[in-house]
């Protein structure tokens, strides 16, 4: 995955370190031992050894890589789920962004490294000099490496200086020449290394990561992750080293699971295990659960305690069962879906329903009715409240497991298919879409604003927070220049395609999703050349990271901030090394879509074109 050129900095660093030090020990240290102090070379030697050890650990130790989430973890979160999820950390709202590569919401302080293409816990930066990410597990080694290297360089330089000062008359002699060379190398690199060491010293004292410092996350306000200077230092140096997440897992013995299953007694009755009591209490509220039929049968057959023959159902072997159940639940959607267009009298809806579904997949299909619904010219209007409640209800069912339970929540995933068909049904009767569509309920309270609101919940959170003071908004991109932002906003129409649920735009731009440029599709989208840490490119990219994310927020349609489905990756997936590809992609976008249409009308046109069955150029998806 990494090109061989990625190994150049690390091998250069290693070679320089080892060779310079070896030359120093061979040529300079004998004289130093005799003339300065006998203990001087051993001290330098120990520091050197320590530096090499830390360098090795920083290079080879896993930084805290998160394994990618399985499909089944992701299937609860469908496409309507928001791009960000807010969580409160010590009283400060912190946003967790959905990682489209790893398929989970990144924990706080986690970031996705584009070079390594994985999410890293407590991501600091990707260091080219060790060719590794610096994250939670290996930050202390990196930090100690910097300190020890600075000390070592200081020792080498001063030792060499003492030698040279004593041998000024014969600088062309071998020992002196070598010492001079070593001195110049160490002197040359001493300043940057010392600067970096001091920078990280400040970061450790303040309890920040490089990522947070460079993106200016806590610039104006409170850092919820700091524990105070002393405790931060203690945490960095002496916290236990966590084991790897990836890699081998155990020799775990799978636990057999076989029915009959014990169920808790109902609350209204005395705790007596009786099947008769359980059955009636369970049926009414959970009517829609598939399991309702099963408890009845289960309880009827529960009396025999354990079957004589054990029938182990191993967890691993249930992958096939899981696929089956997934297929079944997905089958509900197409069955509910395909019958509806036949019933409706509107042929345009048929086209819209079917075509994106086939091509994009079931995840997007719930969006399609809304895309259609949002076009008033095509649809008759219906009771908006009805649709809104239906929408919010279906959505709240989807997200019931995510703390937005406004309706009594049966198992969300079980109901996804049902709510999918609910939304189809509700939107089949053409619905006039409201101004603020709330198909995505990312956060909580902001949803209560009604149709009049033009902002996304996420955006409202941000806007709500930013006027006060910088901090409750977890991400403060203060360094944005207005002209840059506006230019980025203009260029963001291509990005709208990736956010099909734009509340203020008229149409959900699903068909246009396919016109995403090619290079935003996979790991290659992360950028051809990740900038090195400390380089200008890196700083630009991190600025771009800030710009881009901010432009996401500030754009009205960024509220929709939904995640792309698995099939496509976000075109503007912001991470540190995005700079070259970011600008490159923006150029590509602007070339492809030269007319700067507002996203709503653009989507509108697309939908109309679609309805007419035009062929659109579809690069790829």
């Amino acid at each position, binding site marked *: 995955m990494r090109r061989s050129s990625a190994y150049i900095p690390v091998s250069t660093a290693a070679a320089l370190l080892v060779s310079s030090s070896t030359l120093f020990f061979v040529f300079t240290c004998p004289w130093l031992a005799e003339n300065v102090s006998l203990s001087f070379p051993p001290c330098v030697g120990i520091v050197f050894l320590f530096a090499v050890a830390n360098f090795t650990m920083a290079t080879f130790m896993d930084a805290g890589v998160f394994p990618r989430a399985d499909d089944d973890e992701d299937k609860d979160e469908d496409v309507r789920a928001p791009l960000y999820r807010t969580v409160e950390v010590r009283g400060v709202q912190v946003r967790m962004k959905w990682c489209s590569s790893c398929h989970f919401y990144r924990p706080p302080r986690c970031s996705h490294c584009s070079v390594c293409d994985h999410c890293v816990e407590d991501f600091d930066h990707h260091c080219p000099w060790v060719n590794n990410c610096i994250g939670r597990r290996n930050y202390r080694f990196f930090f100690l490496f910097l300190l020890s290297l600075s000390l070592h360089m200081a020792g080498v330089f001063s030792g060499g200086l003492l030698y040279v000062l004593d041998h000024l008359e014969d600088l062309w002699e071998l020992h002196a020449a070598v010492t001079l060379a070593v001195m110049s190398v160490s002197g040359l690199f001493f300043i940057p290394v010392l600067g970096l060491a001091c920078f990280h010293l400040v970061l450790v004292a303040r309890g920040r990561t490089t990522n947070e410092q460079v993106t200016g996350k806590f610039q104006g306000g409170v850092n*919820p992750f700091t524990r105070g200077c002393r405790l931060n230092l203690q945490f960095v140096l002496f916290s236990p080293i966590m084991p790897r997440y990836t890699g081998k897992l155990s020799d775990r013995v799978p636990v057999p699971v076989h029915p009959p299953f014990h169920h808790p007694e109902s609350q209204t009755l005395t705790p007596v295990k009786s099947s008769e009591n359980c059955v009636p209490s369970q049926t009414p509220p959970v009517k829609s659960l*598939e399991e309702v039929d099963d408890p009845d049968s289960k309880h009827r057959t529960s009396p025999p305690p354990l079957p004589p023959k054990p029938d182990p159902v191993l967890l691993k072997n*249930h992958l096939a069962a899981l696929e089956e159940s997934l297929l079944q639940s997905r089958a509900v959607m197409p069955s509910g879906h395909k019958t509806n267009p036949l019933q409706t009298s509107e042929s345009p809806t048929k086209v819209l329903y079917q075509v994106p579904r086939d091509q994009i997949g079931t995840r997007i299909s719930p969006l399609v009715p809304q895309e259609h619904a949002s076009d008033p010219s095509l649809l008759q209007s219906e009771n908006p409240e009805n649709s809104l409640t239906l929408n919010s209800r279906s959505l709240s069912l989807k997200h019931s497991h995510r703390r937005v339970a406004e309706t009594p929540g049966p198992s969300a995933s079980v109901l996804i298919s049902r709510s999918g068909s609910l939304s189809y049904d509700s939107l089949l009767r053409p619905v006039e879409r409201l101004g603020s569509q709330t198909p995505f309920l990312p956060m909580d309270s902001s949803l209560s604003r009604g149709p009049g609101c033009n902002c996304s919940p996420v955006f409202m959170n941000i806007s709500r927070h930013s006027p006060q003071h910088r901090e409750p908004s977890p991400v403060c991109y203060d360094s944005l220049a207005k002209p840059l932002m506006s230019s980025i906003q203009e260029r963001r129409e291509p990005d709208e395609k990736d956010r099909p649920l734009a509340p203020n735009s008229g149409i959900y731009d699903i068909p246009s999703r396919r016109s995403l440029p090619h290079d935003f599709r996979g790991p290659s989208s992360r950028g051809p050349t990740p900038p090195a840490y400390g380089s200008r490119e890196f700083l630009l990219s991190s600025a771009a990271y800030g710009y881009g994310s901010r432009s996401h927020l500030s754009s009205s349609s960024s509220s929709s901030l939904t995640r792309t489905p698995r099939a496509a990756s976000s075109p503007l997936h912001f991470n540190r090394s995005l700079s070259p590809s970011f600008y490159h992609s923006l150029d590509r976008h602007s070339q492809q879509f030269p007319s700067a249409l507002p996203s709503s009308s653009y989507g509108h046109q697309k939908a109309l074109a679609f309805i007419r069955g035009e062929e659109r150029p579809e690069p790829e998806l």
Partner: protein
Amino acid sequence: MISAPRTATDRTKLPYCHESFHNLQELRHSASLANKVFIQRDYTDGTICKFQTKFPSELDSRIERTLFEDTVKTLNNYYAEAEKIGGQSYLEGCLACLTVYLIFLCIETRYEKVLKKISRYIQEQNEKIYAPRGLLITDPLERGMRVIEISVYEDRGSSGSSSGSSTTSSSGR
């Protein structure tokens, strides 16, 4: 050991991986994975490893609230113990520095020991409490400590000929 269903009818009904049905009299219900519930991390105290003890609604009919909360609280305690910065972690850190980190090749750190304890605890909980209720807890380590994954199994009754047995057993209730 999983063997293929013996009879042709059984083969058509059940996936291969499910239990074997040796004869119709011994038909029993197979369990199939219905759903997975994910217990998310609780970040209110920072990035320490702690899981939410909020009882998920999907488990409402499957397990008692107290049992579930006990499990999660115990896990949280274990993780807190593992991540505690105190005497032993200082000792490990200093020893590691002194031995140029070679000590990691020889001994097991305290975190690893606690993780083994956690693994044993989860295994025991699964065997005693969760599997009889048709649930299985997956060690969060497999998910990068981001979620506790609870697999919910449902009793998928065998169809057709097994319904006879179920009715007979129900009548025998």
